[in-house]
């Protein structure tokens, strides 16, 4: 039985070494072909007419003029009369034409009549409780209200003030009576005004979840000697993938589709598309070589992808390419939910945390949004928390690197930093004191604190809140910590050793820029003892053994484990074949440096190709799988980050001087690309901390900054000095391979916000930390007389 354990440090030839990414030359020379670059024979270009309104019902559509235009080959109504659209930019009609300009002209010739409906696209204000301008109570809302431990009086009052949107039939009341809903409430329902007209839709903008409690928060706050309160948050931001979403669909015959899509999910797309079209996934061939960014926004199939397939069918199977325009990309293809919270923390004078209370809210469009895991990392003993999902028309929520974590991190670490300031203690000491609450990763964090402290010079440079040096430019330090799962996903690959010594690996995964190709080849080469160039790797196609979507930082653990198991099994088969020729047992052999040899007597050796020639005429193919035997991947990482910023209190401009990222992810396959993930995460973090916001206009319901000149990303000169340290060696390596793409994006917002507070002496409560927000915070602190 082979043993599936990663090689010890001294026996690794590629794993753990700094290897340049194998597709680097293709990318840096412009030869890497992305979906956007592909031109298929006879290809048509698709464009989409999008709703100008944030919330509307389609009344009528007239496509006749567009259909008659020369060069227009197909028109497909995506959402026809009677359909309700829930965000500005949602797809209504798609057109395919011989070129983009004709398709654009055709879109302009389509007439759509809409009935506008009420919309909400802003969410920064805390939802008011109690009766307000909201519509009548729906069933779900009423039950949620009862679940939140609102007093019966409050519930009755809401019913009386707002009315209800459903008929309180005797059956319903009977059911609720059985569920122990109070008689006063049931009586109020019987007397309530029933409003079911379309002006008062059967839903509220706010979905309140039940209160969650742990321990006894009330008692905790009574025992607290210091209580710190604050409100913190960050708005919806957009993924802004440089390669916009889209793809090319073509019917190769009346049964089969070939799809080139820009996706993080090559293996899963066929099933999604098949379901949408009512056809077997087996008849859909998906291929993608390179993807120009995803960050979580390219995991699912989109309406325009389905539309491309439908247009192709109408156009006799011709390939139809739809790539979003930049403004559509920012309006509809990227929306990280916002999160805000009013927080209260109680602690002893020595910094011991005793109680947490938070009322959080946030939006991710019509589906609400995720609920941030509060309090983040530190499990404070006594807690009470409640989250309200703001159901609005800002656009559809999409996963973003570490969903919900950056938001939870900002809220928690800002609140803890404010508490530390109130206690007048160094935040690093506060975290160290309470690190037992970070179980089971307390040891990791403590080691990382030390490394980060050394790299930033925190202990020698930290000053209490408010830089007292003269002049308008104030400098400060901030810190934050984070966690993530990152266990390897289900993965399969086929590894073949040919009798001539060549090796091929096929895996239905994708490289989203993290270096997946390189990691697979490193693991295989390390295990087979041959150079990486000796292995041909085929990925990006759903005809290969299925891997998972690249989400949740699950790819590296999945692909390295399946590759390792395949390589071990194939190598062992080779050993079994060649052992007699070396007059040895298979277990005595090793594959090292392009040879197969007896471990204890390296003079008894065959070159790799000579060994493979013993296989006879048939290649050896083995299937590697994850999960499987052996503990090759794991879950649960810790990371610590520190920021050093300068803030000009006259202009409000924040400048990053330095960021330090100390990160654990178990066994690091390729430190070079791993560090790049961390560097990129820091840069993305600077970007969302200082610049990014999906600015929505409540009057019109549209996004005001849907272009890259107004949706500002951090540039090369904005990011300061960046220092990354990967935790490796004993205590880390033996945990196995754990995902890395997401965790380091979690902390930058909190670390930078805390550094700004440390510099200027006051908290800027909301990201991004734009000059106006910084100046407003300073003015508020000065009593509005600044």
């Amino acid at each position, binding site marked *: 039985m082979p043993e599936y354990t990663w090689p010890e440090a001294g026996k690794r030839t590629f794993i753990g070494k700094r290897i*340049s*990414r194998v*597709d*680097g*030359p*293709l*990318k*840096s*020379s*412009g*030869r*890497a*072909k*992305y979906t*956007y*670059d592909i*031109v298929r024979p006879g290809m048509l270009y698709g464009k989409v007419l999008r709703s100008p309104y944030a919330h509307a019902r389609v009344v009528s559509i007239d496509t006749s003029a567009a259909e008659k235009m020369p060069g227009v080959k197909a028109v497909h109504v995506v959402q026809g009369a009677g359909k309700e659209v829930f965000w500005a930019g949602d797809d209504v009609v798609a057109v395919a034409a011989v*070129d*983009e*300009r004709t398709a654009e002209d055709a879109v302009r010739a389509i007439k759509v009549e809409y009935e506008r409906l009420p919309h909400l696209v802003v969410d920064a204000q805390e939802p008011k409780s109690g009766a307000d301008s909201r519509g009548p109570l729906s069933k779900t809302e009423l039950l949620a209200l009862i679940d939140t431990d609102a007093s019966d009086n409050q519930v009755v009052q809401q019913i009386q003030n707002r009315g209800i949107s459903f008929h309180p039939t005797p059956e319903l009341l009977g059911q609720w009576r059985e569920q122990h809903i109070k008689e006063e409430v049931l009586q109020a329902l019987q007397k309530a005004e029933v409003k079911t007209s379309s002006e008062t839709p059967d839903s509220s903008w706010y979905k309140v979840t039940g209160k969650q409690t742990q321990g006894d928060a009330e008692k905790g706050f009574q025992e607290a000697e210091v209580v710190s309160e604050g409100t913190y948050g960050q708005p919806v931001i957009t*993924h*802004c*993938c*440089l*390669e*916009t979403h889209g793809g090319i669909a073509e019917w190769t015959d009346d049964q089969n589709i070939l799809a080139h899509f820009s996706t993080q999910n090559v293996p899963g797309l066929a099933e999604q598309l098949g379901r949408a079209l009512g056809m077997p996934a087996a008849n859909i061939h998906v291929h993608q070589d*390179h*993807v*120009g*960014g*995803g*960050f979580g926004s390219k995991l699912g199939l989109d309406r325009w992808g389905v539309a491309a397939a439908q247009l192709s069918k109408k156009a006799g199977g011709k390939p139809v390419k739809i790539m979003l*325009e*930049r403004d559509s990309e920012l309006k509809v293809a990227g929306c990280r939910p916002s999160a805000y919270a009013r927080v209260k923390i109680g602690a002893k004078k020595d910094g011991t945390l005793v109680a947490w209370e938070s009322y959080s809210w946030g939006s991710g469009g019509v589906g609400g949004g995720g609920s941030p895991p509060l309090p983040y990392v530190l499990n404070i003993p006594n807690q009470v928390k409640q989250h309200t999902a703001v159901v609005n028309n800002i656009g559809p929520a999409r996963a973003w690197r570490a969903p919900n974590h950056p938001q939870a991190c900002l809220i928690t670490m800002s609140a803890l930093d404010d508490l530390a300031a109130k206690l007048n203690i160094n935040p690093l000491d506060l975290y160290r004191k309470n690190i037992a609450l970070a179980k089971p990763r307390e040891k990791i964090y403590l080691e990382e604190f030390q490394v980060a402290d050394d790299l930033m010079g925190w202990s020698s440079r930290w000053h209490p809140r408010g830089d007292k040096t003269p002049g308008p430019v104030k400098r400060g330090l901030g810190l934050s910590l984070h966690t993530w799962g990152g266990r390897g996903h289900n993965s399969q690959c086929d590894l073949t050793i040919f009798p001539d010594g060549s090796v091929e690996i096929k895996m239905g995964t994708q490289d*989203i*820029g*993290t*270096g997946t190709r390189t990691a697979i080849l490193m693991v295989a080469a390390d295990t087979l003892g041959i150079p990486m160039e000796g292995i041909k790797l085929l990925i990006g196609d759903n005809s290969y053994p299925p891997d998972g979507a690249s989400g949740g930082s699950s790819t590296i653990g999945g692909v390295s484990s399946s590759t390792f198991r395949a390589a071990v099994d194939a190598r062992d088969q080779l050993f079994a074949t060649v052992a007699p020729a070396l007059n040895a047992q298979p277990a005595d052999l090793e594959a090292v440096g392009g040879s197969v040899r007896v471990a204890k007597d390296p003079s008894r050796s065959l070159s790799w190709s000579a060994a493979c020639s013993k296989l006879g005429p048939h290649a050896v193919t083995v299937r590697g799988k994850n999960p499987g035997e052996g503990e090759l991947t794991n879950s649960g990482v810790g990371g610590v980050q520190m920021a050093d910023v300068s803030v000009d209190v006259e202009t409000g401009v924040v400048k990053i001087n330095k960021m330090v990222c100390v990160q654990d992810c178990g066994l690091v396959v390729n430190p*070079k*690309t791993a*560090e*790049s993930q961390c*560097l*990129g*995460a*820091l*840069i*993305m973090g600077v*970007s969302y901390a200082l610049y990014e916001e999906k600015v929505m206009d409540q009057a019109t319901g549209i996004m005001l900054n849907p*272009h*890259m*000149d107004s949706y500002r*990303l*951090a*540039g*090369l*000169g904005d*990011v300061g000095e*960046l220092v990354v340290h990967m935790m490796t060696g004993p205590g880390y390596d033996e945990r196995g391979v754990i995902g890395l793409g997401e965790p380091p994006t979690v902390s930058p917002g909190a670390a930078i916000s805390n550094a700004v507070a440390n510099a200027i002496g006051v908290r800027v409560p909301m990201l991004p930390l734009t000059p106006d927000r910084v100046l407003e915070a300073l003015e508020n602190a000065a009593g509005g007389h600044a």
Partner: protein
Amino acid sequence: MSDREQEGSSGVSRREFLKISGIAAASVPLIAGPAVLKVAGEEVAVHGPDKTPITLNVNGKNYSAELEPRVTLLDALRQDFEITGPKRVCDRGACGACTVLLDGKTVYSCSVLAIEAQGKPIVTVEGLMQGEQLHPVQAAFVENDAQQCGFCTPGFVVATKAFLDKHPHPTPEQVHRGLGGNFCRCGTYDGIRKVVSQLGKA
């Protein structure tokens, strides 16, 4: 990038532009190929709106197509000549992913009309290669892992090459300004700074 600010990338002077726009009120005949109109006493060629023959010299090779005058250099390269190194990202001169060299100067090819780019050598990221050999800038991008998804990389490579040609030993401030016209979403700036510092030391 300062180069771009200094150069009038359109190749049309302000005086010429005023002369052309001066005829806007007059009706321009809808004919293919340039018509010659007399404006302010001088003869001016007028193109479009229909397709007109256009020839571009890209990476040392001539490419010809019938294109409407409104077609950008970027779209002509990508859609008509299948030179897809330059990427269409913002499509309005904000991100630099479409950067190419036009007559030796960096331009955003999304903001130059193909018709204007005629008669001048155009070099894209593909054209920096020396046969099968990567250009030193391209090799340094690989070595310093200055790329992740790689979609901004072609524009950054061209911009970095042009920048280093002009500033062989740049200061950090010059790097920040000189390469501030390109954006990356994955966050590869640290690698790009290492590229510049590696090649800038030579």
